């Protein structure tokens, strides 16, 4: 009996470690596979010219990824600017000031937002946001645009990121012990001073990591952005112009990548850039959290 229990224990240990190993090595295997597939393009073109050149003509064998990287960064930053302050203040209000009834009402709303498939966000973008940008916002700024633009992409992306960021912010604000708030109030702080001096400070690592998660999600989001962003290879600081983010490039051209030499390798390289950037965002934010927690 004793022997059997020991064996069971050992076996269970082994399979748990094995499943953990799969999870652990999955990103590594993906990275290696993408790298292996992108080797042909490295042979044809140098890394600086791949990343920095804006000459994109696959038929001539010219692959400059800069317009796509630029679009990706632009859309991500815009969506972050729209969603981060909104989520921060909404989370503060919900955790510190709102009535219990409102909190109970909001939780399912946030979950529903998180559960909506991205194609629906894309449709909503086409039906509402694109006309809004083209017919309402653009005339205000004196710009002519179809509405399919970096700005529309940023807005749709911001809405998509809200539930993720908001949920994490709510979690980190709720984790602040009530005793700490009591301490600040009893010292004579107002509710807002308590938020500013104690709650924001205490949950700073949580705020940073939710922002990081939001950024990573925005950078990788494909379908909804692709539907509203215009998909034109160009570099322009004007948010009313169309752009072409990396994920859209991969998704739009995946079907025909075999028809042009090196094209498949180029798309694999685009995927590798995405993976590396999202990995880097995660690592940078983790390092930041580690530093602030130590301080």
């Amino acid at each position, binding site marked *: 009996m004793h022997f059997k229990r020991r064996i069971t224990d050992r076996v269970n240990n082994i399979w748990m470690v094995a499943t953990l190993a799969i999870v652990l090595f999955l990103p590594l295997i993906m990275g290696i596979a993408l790298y292996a597939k992108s080797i042909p393009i490295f042979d044809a073109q140098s890394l600086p010219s791949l990343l920095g050149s804006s000459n994109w003509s696959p038929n001539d064998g010219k692959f400059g990824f800069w317009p796509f990287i630029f679009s990706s960064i632009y859309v991500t930053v815009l969506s972050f600017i729209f969603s981060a302050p909104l989520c921060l203040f909404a989370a503060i209000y919900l955790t510190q000031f709102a009535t219990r009834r409102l909190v109970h009402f909001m939780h399912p709303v946030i979950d529903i937002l998180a559960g909506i498939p991205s194609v629906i966000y894309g449709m909503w973008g086409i039906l509402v946001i694109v006309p809004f940008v083209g017919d309402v916002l653009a005339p205000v700024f004196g710009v002519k645009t179809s509405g399919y633009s970096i700005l529309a992409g940023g807005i749709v992306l911001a809405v998509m990121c809200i539930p993720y960021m908001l949920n994490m912010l709510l979690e980190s604000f709720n984790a602040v012990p009530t005793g700490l708030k*009591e*301490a600040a*109030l*009893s010292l*004579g*702080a*107002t509710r807002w001073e308590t938020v500013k001096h104690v709650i924001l400070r205490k949950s700073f690592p949580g705020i940073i990591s939710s922002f990081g998660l939001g950024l990573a999600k925005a950078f990788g989001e494909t379908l909804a952005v692709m539907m509203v962003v215009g998909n034109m290879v160009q570099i322009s600081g004007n948010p009313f112009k169309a752009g072409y983010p990396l994920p859209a490039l991969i998704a739009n051209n995946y079907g025909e990548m075999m028809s042009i030499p090196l094209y498949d390798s180029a798309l694999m390289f685009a995927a590798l850039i995405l993976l590396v950037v999202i990995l880097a965002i995660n690592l940078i934010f983790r390092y930041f959290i580690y530093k602030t927690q130590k301080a």
Partner: protein
Amino acid sequence: MNTQIMDIQTQYLQSLQIKKQPAILQIKNLNVYAEKQHILKNINLNIPKNKVTVLLGPSGCGKTTLLKSLNKLTDLYRELRVSGQIFIEGDDILNTQKNVALIRQKMGLLSQKPFPLPVSIYKNVAYGIHLKGVKNKDLIDYNVEKKLREVGLWDEVKDRLHKSADSLSIGQQQRLCLARGLAVKPRIILADEPTSALDPVSSKIIENLFRELKKHYTIILVTHILRQAQRLADNVVFMHYGEIIEQGTPEQLFKNPQSPQLREYLVEGN
């Protein structure tokens, strides 16, 4: 006719008692509900000035809720409904139009577990002084040192004032929280089982501090430790299921308990 005289008599006697011990805090008809639960049932209580009043009773009897009602921390608990009046120096903190934050500064809070603010040791003590509007750095420095000395922490932390308060031991953190509370110059110290998370040595230090502090402050101490109540109390208020059952000096209550609840508690509690 007869009852009228009785009423006048009792009113007279009550006012005499209040005069005998000038009250700093008066609680009138305080009721607290949580959802369908009635946590505090019609509490009427006067807290005498510069005395230690101990709130005693089994857990869940409403002691902590009563303590938190006193400086309106019940605001933080959305499920609580509070009615009644609590007068501190003439202001009804529950219904006042004045700035509650300022009234709260008349009371320093010490909770069961220390909750240092997520800043340095120095800033923990300086925070309340800042909130009072003091800008002069020398004055703040002076007060921070003075309050840290009052709780006997100065020598232990003077070389690391700007380190995070989390680096202190639990006992030190609790004394820091006390110093922080004293720095806003309160009249009253609200202490909610302040030694329950501490080791015996740290508990002893806190208790000794309280013995010193009661010369200058009114202390309201929640505890379920009978010996602590005996050692520190001038007045004991015994609570049971949200009601005040008995109150009086420790001698009266512990030697000669009137109610069956207190008698049972004294037997079980020891």
